[in-house]
């Protein structure tokens, strides 16, 4: 017993030493921040986007939405127990997918547009084919021991999930089995984002940390701290070298992968509401952040200033998304509406 205790003490000391080493290494490269680098960039000015469509159809809180890769179809999930696929150009509903469990928290479109996935308090990720005559359940991915908070397809044969059980998981849709389980967070995983090359992904969790993972090896490569409460949302910056997070601590942050640390925080004394969702415009210059204060605030990602607001929802904005063609931004809310702005 004494030998083991001695070994534990040595290892714990090594942990402390490594943590100090990491902090020192980060400090050593911290020779400036985004605001100083952005000094010479022209201001964006006031960003005034107009409401173009209000999509009405859900009967309860909307929890999640995801654009199709065609930038035209979009899927939304509501705790009224339905997924709705919309044609955002006409505002028409294309498909309604009834859910076995109404407690949905996340929805995703496969890049092919053929499959959709959803899940929530049922702890499962259900994958359906929406191109069939009527939506057909293909797989029920059942292994998480906590709620499904986020899901993203890599292709029609692989999907990544994040769960309240603190793990993320890569599944094989052909077998319905888990391929890799990503463990390292010590709090519920709330959100994930896939890198463009699909070799890595980032996750945000209730332990206030964001982590970068190697998708194929299953290892956590980097851990990013700074937030002081749950991270609810995470998105990659379009060049793939940075990502933006949104948190219950009422701030958003941009972290750079290569300098292994936070480069700017988006926060304002007058904003005392948690951030539920984040998305970026195609150049990465604008950050659209959905808040509990019923608004989606727009930030200049380089200068860290609030440059606009999308107001119109009557309840918390729970999800936001910019389509691949960058032509607009969609906000979804607990008020049961989705709104399209540009």
């Amino acid at each position, binding site marked *: *017993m004494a*030998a*083991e205790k001695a*070994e*534990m003490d040595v*290892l*714990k000391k090594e*942990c402390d030493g*490594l943590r100090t*080493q*990491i902090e020192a*290494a*980060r400090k050593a*490269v911290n*020779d*400036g*921040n*985004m605001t*100083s*680098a*952005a000094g010479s*960039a022209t201001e*964006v000015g006031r*960003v005034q*986007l107009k409401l*173009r*469509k209000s999509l009405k159809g859900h009967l309860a809180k909307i929890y999640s939405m995801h654009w199709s890769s065609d930038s*035209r179809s979009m899927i939304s999930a509501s705790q009224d127990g339905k997924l709705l696929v919309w044609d*955002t*150009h006409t505002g028409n509903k294309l498909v309604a997918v009834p859910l076995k469990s109404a407690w949905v928290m996340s929805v995703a479109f496969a890049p092919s547009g053929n499959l959709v996935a959803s899940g929530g308090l049922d702890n499962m990720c259900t994958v359906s084919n929406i191109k069939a005559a009527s939506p057909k359940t293909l797989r029920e991915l059942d292994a998480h021991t906590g709620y499904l908070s986020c899901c993203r397809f890599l292709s029609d044969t692989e999907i990544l999930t994040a769960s309240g059980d603190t793990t993320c998981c890569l599944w094989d849709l052909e077998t319905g089995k888990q391929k890799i389980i990503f463990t390292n967070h010590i709090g519920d995983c709330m959100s994930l984002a896939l890198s463009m090359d699909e070799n890595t992904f980032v996750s945000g969790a209730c332990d206030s940390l964001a982590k970068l993972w190697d998708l194929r090896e299953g290892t*956590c*490569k*980097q*851990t990013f701290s700074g937030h002081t409460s749950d991270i609810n949302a995470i998105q990659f*910056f*379009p*060049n793939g*070298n*940075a990502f933006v997070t949104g948190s219950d601590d009422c701030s958003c942050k941009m972290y*750079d992968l*290569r*300098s*292994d*640390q936070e*480069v700017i925080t988006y926060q304002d004394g007058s904003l005392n509401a948690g951030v539920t969702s984040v998305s970026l*415009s*195609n*150049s*990465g*210059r*604008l950050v659209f952040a959905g808040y509990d204060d019923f608004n989606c605030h727009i930030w200049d*990602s*380089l200068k860290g200033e609030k440059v606009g607001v999308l107001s119109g929802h009557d309840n918390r904005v729970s999800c936001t998304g*910019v389509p691949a*063609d*960058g*032509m*607009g931004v969609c906000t979804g809310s607990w008020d049961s509406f989705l709104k*399209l702005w*540009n």
Partner: protein
Amino acid sequence: MSNISAPNSSLVLVQKAVKQLRLEASVRRIKVSQAAAELKTFCLQNAQKDPLLTGVPSSDNPFRPPKSCILL
């Protein structure tokens, strides 16, 4: 050497933590000023291709069909 047959789970956890921290410590880091400059360059180079920055002309706005003229 430990003479306990079953692995002590707290020991295993600390061993995993050390392994993870060693991995994270080995990351090559670039200067924040360089990282920030590159992010800024990306934004500026792509600004003209960002419809939410440049604005979407009404005639081309996919979310808003052009108003048609009705001749009575």
